[in-house]
């Protein structure tokens, strides 16, 4: 019988290699460790200080999904955190009640953050992926008189 061996540490065994193994030798399930060491109270460790393992999707990127990207304008932002609570991709970096910017490794460019931003003009706007951030800021619109629905 042919089976694919999988282990809980990448590299310990050759993964994806097809070997002839018995039915009772096939690994039952796979365990992926999110961190390189055993951690307690992850909720008390800020992301910057976590020993993320290579298995953690935090170490991966989906930046290539984007055709448009949000650009952040600190000057107008009121740190309301609307963008933070509704970003589906954990890509709004907020620390100590302040919005710091966008995590472009994980942002997919959905545009939700722009829609929920309450300032006038908005503190987040979508631009072409290739747009230079400085150039984008230079193009920022003026305050709108009254938004017509």
């Amino acid at each position, binding site marked *: 019988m042919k089976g694919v061996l999988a282990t809980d540490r990448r590299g310990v065994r050759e993964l994806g290699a097809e070997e002839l193994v018995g039915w009772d030798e096939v690994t039952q399930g796979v365990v992926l460790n999110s961190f390189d060491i055993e951690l307690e109270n992850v909720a008390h460790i800020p992301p910057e200080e976590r020993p993320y393992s290579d298995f*953690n*999707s935090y170490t991966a990127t989906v930046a290539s999904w984007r055709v448009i990207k949000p650009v952040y304008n600190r000057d107008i932002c009121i740190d309301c955190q609307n963008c933070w609570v509704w970003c589906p991709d954990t890509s709004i970096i907020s620390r100590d009640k302040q919005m710091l910017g966008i995590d472009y490794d994980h942002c997919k460019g959905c*545009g939700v953050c722009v829609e*929920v931003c309450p300032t006038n003009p908005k503190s987040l706007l979508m631009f072409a992926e290739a747009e230079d951030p400085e150039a984008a800021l230079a193009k920022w619109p003026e305050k709108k008189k009254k938004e017509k629905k």
Partner: protein
Amino acid sequence: MAITSIKNLKEFSTVNERFEGAHLLCPGCAHSMIVRELMNATDDNLVIATNTGCLEVSTAVYPYTSWDTSWIHIGFENAATAAAGAEAMYKARKRKGTLKDPDAPVKFVAFGGDGSTYDIGFQWLSGAVERGHDFTYICLDNENYANTGGQRSSATPIGAHTTTAQAGRVSYGKKQKKKDMVAIMAAHGAPYVAQLAPNKWKIMAKGFQKALETEGPCFINTVSACTTEWKFDPKDTIHITDLATDTLMFPIYEIIDGHELNILYRPKNVLPVEEYLAAQGRYKHLFKPENKHVIEKIQKDINDFWEYLQRREEARV
């Protein structure tokens, strides 16, 4: 239990997230908004079971995991079973004194889609709730089997187009009404049952905290707008969810101990259901003259159900 402050969004935003990016859910998917909020609502240790569906296939794509907590993937029917099993094992080991840190606070959570919750995993959910395990079951209700291409489920509302209940010359889409899963779970006598929505972040976070704090099995149905199968622009997920709650298509309420019903959100300005339907491609066909009666029926069902909820709330029975 250690709960996160949800007094306002600024305080809430100081939590250390345990749901990581670079998962593969569609841009704008509400599943991850809901999951993030659940995980951010507490800093207790979490043991989470997730059965097959968009959430599971997108957050555990080998060799990656997006979960910074104990997380189990299990077959389509068994989110409740896995969470219940882990909870029972934990209790037994606590009794036997074989836990490394018996005082560490742990919460058991199961996530299932509507396909698995309303249909295929229904009896296992029912069993786990009847046995009284101490866990919280959260249904990510996007009203279809999204992961396999958008088939109808018993959570799909009447009139919606799905790949197995198509709208066309002879049909207006699904013909049957959505199953009232919240009532069914309340009828189990579960101590806390609710229907919540991510646009109302504070109500949702409060509900999650209540469920996590409550001993015994809790069930929460969350509306999870699906940009791909509902057919709307990814940027509009929250806007669509606003329309869902403000047309009362998705009323927000809780039922405590199987009987005490509280409405948690009353829209100041209740919108006609057309506004919600018109914003999504899956209801496009309802605006043909021959399908006008379907919209009328949907509106009437909404009105009747709202009336029912208000009377239940008033009656306190």
